[in-house]
């Protein structure tokens, strides 16, 4: 704050310059590789528009990248679509250079939630923008005193995080429903649904559990359910705040586990749908 520093400050160090003797570059490198892998794979999967549902042996598995499935692509009847096949008005405004993919209609919401997440922000500022590249390691010289942080445009928009949280909570319910739905298998004889468990059921069930650990430990959620108050007392509100705080202490771990698992769930459903993997029934 404007309490002037009247003595010359030490020189600013150059990019990567540090007295640290440990392998400080490993952490940002791993984060970079982890995020880059997920971004590349999820983008590729989102543009595919096929192999997102598996109904072999009566299963009802839907990839989380495509849930909620608003419309099926033309000519497809996955059984998961809320409004059936994509309507002609939607197809008429769809960019002609790419195939219709329902994932592109919804992925901006969970993507926005993760992009504006406090943990991810700190992590990708380091790994992608070297801002800073790691603690007490020099930054790129061009930024220097022009640094704007999240105080000014564009990063001030990160404050929208809580609105993405509201959407993420809705997605959590929808993915939990998908997990419950995966316990139902169509009986080939009667045509009705019967309880069952396949490997895919476990995969789809772990997904909302990990996402729940991540979403319910979100800093904005923790604030909204009690952190915003100075006096919480010791009632149910305080207990909810304590539960969220407990998850928040491992927010980074939940963030990574849920990120990996949501990607793996898509891989599982996709490879089963393509006939490369077999979904073994346990019950």
């Amino acid at each position, binding site marked *: 704050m404007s309490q*002037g*520093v009247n003595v010359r400050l030490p020189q600013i160090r150059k990019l990567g310059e540090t007295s640290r003797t440990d392998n400080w570059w490993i952490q940002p490198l791993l984060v970079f590789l982890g995020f880059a892998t997920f971004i590349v794979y999820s983008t590729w999967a989102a543009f595919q528009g096929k192999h997102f549902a598996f109904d072999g042996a009566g299963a009802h598995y839907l990839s989380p990248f495509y849930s909620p499935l608003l419309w099926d692509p033309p000519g497809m009847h996955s059984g998961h679509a809320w409004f059936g096949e994509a309507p002609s008005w939607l197809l008429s405004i769809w960019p002609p250079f790419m195939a219709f993919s329902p994932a592109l209609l919804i992925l901006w919401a969970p993507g926005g939630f993760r992009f504006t997440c406090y943990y991810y922000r700190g992590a990708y*500022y380091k790994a992608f923008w070297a801002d800073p590249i790691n*603690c007490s390691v020099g930054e790129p010289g061009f930024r220097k005193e022009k*640094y704007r*942080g999240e105080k000014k445009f564009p990063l001030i928009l990160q*404050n929208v995080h809580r609105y993405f949280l509201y959407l993420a909570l809705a997605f959590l319910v929808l993915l939990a429903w998908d997990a419950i739905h995966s316990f139902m298998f169509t009986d080939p004889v009667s045509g009705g649904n019967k309880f069952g468990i396949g490997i895919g059921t476990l995969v789809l069930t772990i997904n909302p559990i990990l996402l729940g650990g991540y979403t319910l430990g979100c800093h904005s959620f923790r604030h909204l359910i009690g*952190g*915003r108050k100075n*006096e919480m007392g010791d009632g149910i509100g305080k207990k909810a705040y304590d539960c969220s705080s407990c998850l928040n202490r491992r927010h980074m771990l939940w963030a990574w586990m849920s990120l990996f698992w949501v990607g793996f769930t898509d891989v599982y459903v996709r490879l089963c749908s393509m006939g490369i993997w077999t979904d073994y029934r346990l019950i």
Partner: protein
Amino acid sequence: MGKATFRIWTGQAEQAGFKDYATDVGEGMVVLDAVHQIQAETAPTLACRWNCKAGKCGSCSAEINGKPRLMCMTRLDQLDLSMPVVIEPMKSFPHIKDLVTDVSWNFRVKKSIKKFKPRAPDAPDGTWRMQQADVDRVQEFRKCIECFLCQDVCHVLRDHHKHPEFAGPRHFVYTAALEMHPLDTEDRLGQMKDEGGLGYCNITKCCTKVCPEHITITDNAIIPLKERVVDEYYDPITRLFKMFKPRK
């Protein structure tokens, strides 16, 4: 443990630079012990600030092998003594001499933050009633020993020299302790948003990593303050709700 070399930043202004000192080291020694031994043996004018030698006064802050740490709490058996141990003064503050920096800017910033303003007493005898759980939350922030390692490692101060526009993690912790106090009625959010430059923090969590008192600075102080600023200035729905709610 034998002999070890300490590469210490010595001198003043343009003449300052690294100088190697070799000294005997033994079991249980911390970096501050080695510096004192070097002062006694070969460098009587070597300046370093210290006081309690117990990690509670926050005086002996320095950078050891590039990491901001208290010299009195850094045991030599945690360091690789096969290479020189590099000891430097903090980088976010003006250098005075050797390992000493001028940290007075921090005290001036602290003075400028709005003071504690309790509500009217709850009882006729002038006392207040609070839930223990509500006090526990701010108790964490009161562990701060003002070593300013968090200020040192924060890249907003260290690399961008935003001292005129940014209060730094230490003062966000101080503000959070006041702002979340169950009795407090003052509003410091505008001050932190504008003069304190809370938005400059980009959540690198470096401050949390170096805190010798293990205060969860980013998650428990800075982000909750950021969220309160969002409530007050950026979230239209919360602002709408607040219009119908009496102010504290």
